[in-house]
C-alpha cells in the first residue's frame, strides 16, 4: 500500500497576533525545517470576533502558522508554546497527520 510509505507526524496550527509571530518561529526553529504562515486571518474566539482585514496595520492582524513535527518533539515544544498561549491571546491545535518524504520535515542541524 502506498500509505505505508507515509510517516506519522504531529501537525500544529497556531494562531497568534502578528506581533508575536517571531516568538513562535524562534520556538519552532529547533524542531522544524519549515512552516506555512497565513496572514491576516479572521475569526471568532472566546474574546469575540477578531477582524483580520486591516489595510494599514500588519502588527495587530492575526496570523496562522502551520507546521509538522516529529511525534517525540511535541512534548518539549509544548513546554514553550503553551506558556506563550496562556499569557497572550492565541490558540493552537495539534492533530495526527502522515507525510511523504519525511526527511524534508526534519529540523536543520
Amino acid at each position: 500500500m502506498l500509505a505505508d510509505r507515509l510517516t506519522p507526524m504531529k501537525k500544529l496550527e497556531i494562531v497568534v497576533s502578528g506581533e508575536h509571530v517571531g516568538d513562535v518561529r524562534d520556538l519552532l526553529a529547533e524542531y522544524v525545517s519549515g512552516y506555512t504562515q497565513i496572514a491576516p486571518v479572521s475569526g471568532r474566539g472566546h474574546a469575540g470576533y477578531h477582524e483580520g482585514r486591516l489595510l494599514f496595520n500588519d502588527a495587530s492582524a492575526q496570523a496562522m502558522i502551520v507546521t509538522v513535527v516529529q511525534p517525540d518533539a511535541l512534548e518539549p515544544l509544548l513546554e514553550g508554546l503553551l506558556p506563550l498561549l496562556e499569557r497572550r491571546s492565541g490558540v493552537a491545535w495539534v492533530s495526527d497527520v502522515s507525510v511523504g518524504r519525511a526527511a524534508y520535515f526534519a529540523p536543520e542541524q
Partner: protein
Amino acid sequence: MNRSERTRLRATVALAADAIAPVWPLDTFVAVNPLLGFDALPFIEATARAAELFRAQVLPADGRSGDDARDPADRAREFVAAIGVRDTLGDWCAALGWGDAVAEIDERTGRWLAAYLDRGEAAWTMPHRARGFYAAWKRLARHECAATPNGRAYRRAIDALPDHAVDAVGANLEALGIPPERRHGYLQRHLAQCAGWAGFIKRAHDAGEDPGLDLLALLAVRTWYERCALTATARAHGVEPAFPAVRDWLLADPARVRRAREPHFERAAHDAAYARLEQREREFAASLLAVLEPRDDAAPRAVAAQFVFCIDARSEPLRRALEAEGPYETLGFAGFFGMPVRYRPFDAPHATAIAPVLLRPTREVGERPDAATARQLRRAAARTRTFDAIAGGALAHPVAAFAGVEAFGPFAALRAARQTFRAERAHAMPDDRPLQLDALPFDERVFFGEAALRIMGLTHGFAPLIVLCGHGGSTVNNAFSAAIDCGACGGNRGTINARVAADVLNAPDVRAALVARGITIPPHTRFVAAEHDTTRDAVRLVDCDDRALLAALARASDAVRAQRARALPAAPLGASDPPARAGDWAQVRPEWGLARNAAFVIGPRAFSRAADLDGRCFLHSYDAPADPDGAILEQILTAPLIVAAWINLQYFFATVDPDRFGSGDKLLQQPVGGIGVVAGNGGDLRNGLPLQSTSFGATPYHEALRLLAVVVAPRERIDAIVARQQVLQRLFDHRWVSLVAIDPGDGRAYRYAGDRAWHPHPTETPECSPTV
C-alpha cells in the same frame, strides 16, 4: 539543558520581553509608547507596575518617594519577596551597600553591544562578529581580565560557559540560584534595566535584521556579569554568591539592608496623581468640545485648490492660515498618503521603508533620472567616496592620523568657523527627479489610490488642483533629526509619498480604473505634491508654479512662523527665528515638534475650521454619511489613531521622566553606531525624546495628557468596530486614549466609559478654561 528546558527558557524570555517596547534606530526615529508592553492592563495599573519595574516616574506627580521609614525587618522581607518579582541580585547589591552592580553590568554589556552593533563607523570592526554576538563576545571577553592576577581563572570560567546563549542563560541562572518559578520576573527586571538595548534587539531580531543577536544573547552576557559582580562582593562579606545564601544572610540580620529600594512607591499617592491627571484631562476635553461645532460656509464658493495635509498636529495652524487666504479647502490624512512603499534613491545600496511603522512595505520605488543627470550623480558619488576613503583612511589609521590632522585640520577649522558664524542650509532641497514606479503593480496602484481617496473623503467635488502636502523638519548636527520628520512615513520626510500618490492619481489608466469603482476624477483636475517644512514654516510645491497659490502659501507660512516663533525660547548666542534655527549647528531645539499634542479629531473639517486649536490636535478628515458600514472609520482607528496615540504617549512619558523614558539632556549624549545615543561614555541605549523636545530647562513645555480622540460618527458604528478590534479595546477600555463621539445628527457629545457604554458629555465649560 535538555530540549524541554531550553524551549521553556526561550518562552520565559519571550514573555519577559513583553514589558519592553520596541526601539528603532535614530535614522528612522519612530514614536512608540514606552509602556506598550503593558497595554493589556488599565492605564492606572500599567503605570503602577511600570513605576516599579523601571524605577521610573510615570505620572506628572506620582507615588514615588525617597523616604522609607519602615522597620528594617520589613524592608528585608520585601527584598526577599521582590527577587524575581521586582529585583535582581544586582539590585540587591546597591541596597546592601555592595556597590552599584547594575551600573557595572550596564557599562560592560553596553560596551560590547556598541562594538557589535557598530554600523561601519568604527575603523576596526568587532572580531568574530560574523559568528553572532554571544559567540564573538565569548571569544573576546576571555581576555578582559588578562592583565589582572585573576586573568587565567577568568579565562577558564568564560571558556566553561556553554556555546549557545540559551544554555548560558540557564547556566548563569542556575549558578545565581534563581528558582524556575522566579525566572520570568527576574529576567524581566534584567531587560528593564537595559530597556533601550533590549528594545532595539527585540525589534531588530523580530524584523530579521540580525540573526546573530537576540535577547537570549543579551541576557547570557548580562547574567554572566551579574555573576562576576556578585561573586566579587558577596565573598568579601563571607557569603556564597547565590540567591539562597544571600537571602539567608539577609534574613539573619535585617539591619544589613543599608538602603531602601529607590524610589519607594506608594500606591495611594499614585492613585491621587492619577485622579489629578483625569481632572486636568476633563478640563481640556471640555475646552476642546466647546469650540468644536459644525460651521457651514454662508455661501458655496468655487474652490481653487484642495490641500491634503498630514494629520500631524503641526499641520493645523497652517491649514487654518491657508483657509483664511482664499478659496482653499484643506483635508487631513496620514502623511504617507496611502502609499506604503520602500524608497531607494538613485544608485543607493539600500531602500528605506517610508510608511507607518505598523506596516512592512514590500514594494520599492526609485528614481529615474535622465542619462546626463545619472552620469552627473554617479560622478558626484564617486568623488564623495574617494574623498571619504582618503580622509577617513588617513584619520583612522593609527600612524597616518597625525599627518591627516595636519593636512585636513585647516579645512575642517574653516568649515567649523563657517558653520558657527553663518547658518548652514539645513536641508538641501531634493531635485525631484522622476520616480520609477514600475515595481508597484497596476492593480495595487488602483487599490491604494482608491483607498487613499475614500479614506480622506475625497470621492467627489474635486478642485482643479489638489495638493498632497507631505512634511519634514530641517535641522543640522542633530542626532534626532528624524524625530521632527513625518511619523506616518516611519520618521522620514513625506515628500516622496506625496509624489508617488500624485503620480498614481494623475495616471490616465488609474483614473479609468477608478471610474469603474465609482470615483470619477475630472480630466482637468491635477494632483501635485508639496512639502511642508515644519521648522522653517515654508511650503514648496513640486512641479507647480501657480503664482496666486504660491503667494497665498507664503502669506500663510509667514503668519504661522510669527505665531510659532513666540513659543520658541530665545537663543541668546545663536539664531532665534525659525528658519535660522534650522541651519544653526549649535541649536538643540530647532522646533518644538509635536510637543503639547493632546487630541485627535476625526471628522469633517467643518467641525474644527472655526477653532484655533493651537497646534495641539491631530486632524483626520472623515465623512460619516459616506461610510455606512464603518469600513473607512475602522482603517482610521486601527492605523492613524494608533500612530497618534504612540506619539502622544511617547511625549507623555518622556515629559514625566526624561531620563528613563526619554534620552535625557542632549548636551550629555554620545551617538552610538548610528542607532541611538548613550549618556556620557556608556550604559543603556537611550532612544526616547531628548529633554529639549519636551521641556525648557526644568520646566515642561509639553503638557502630559493622554490623547483625547474625538470622532464625529454614530456611537453604534464605533461600538461595532471596537468590538472586533482588540487593539482598540485595549486603547479605549483601558484608558490609554480617551474617546468622545460627536453625533453627526444633533452634534451632541458622548464620552466613552468602557465596555461599549457612553455618557452624555457635560456641556458646561470650566470657568478657568485652559487654552486648547
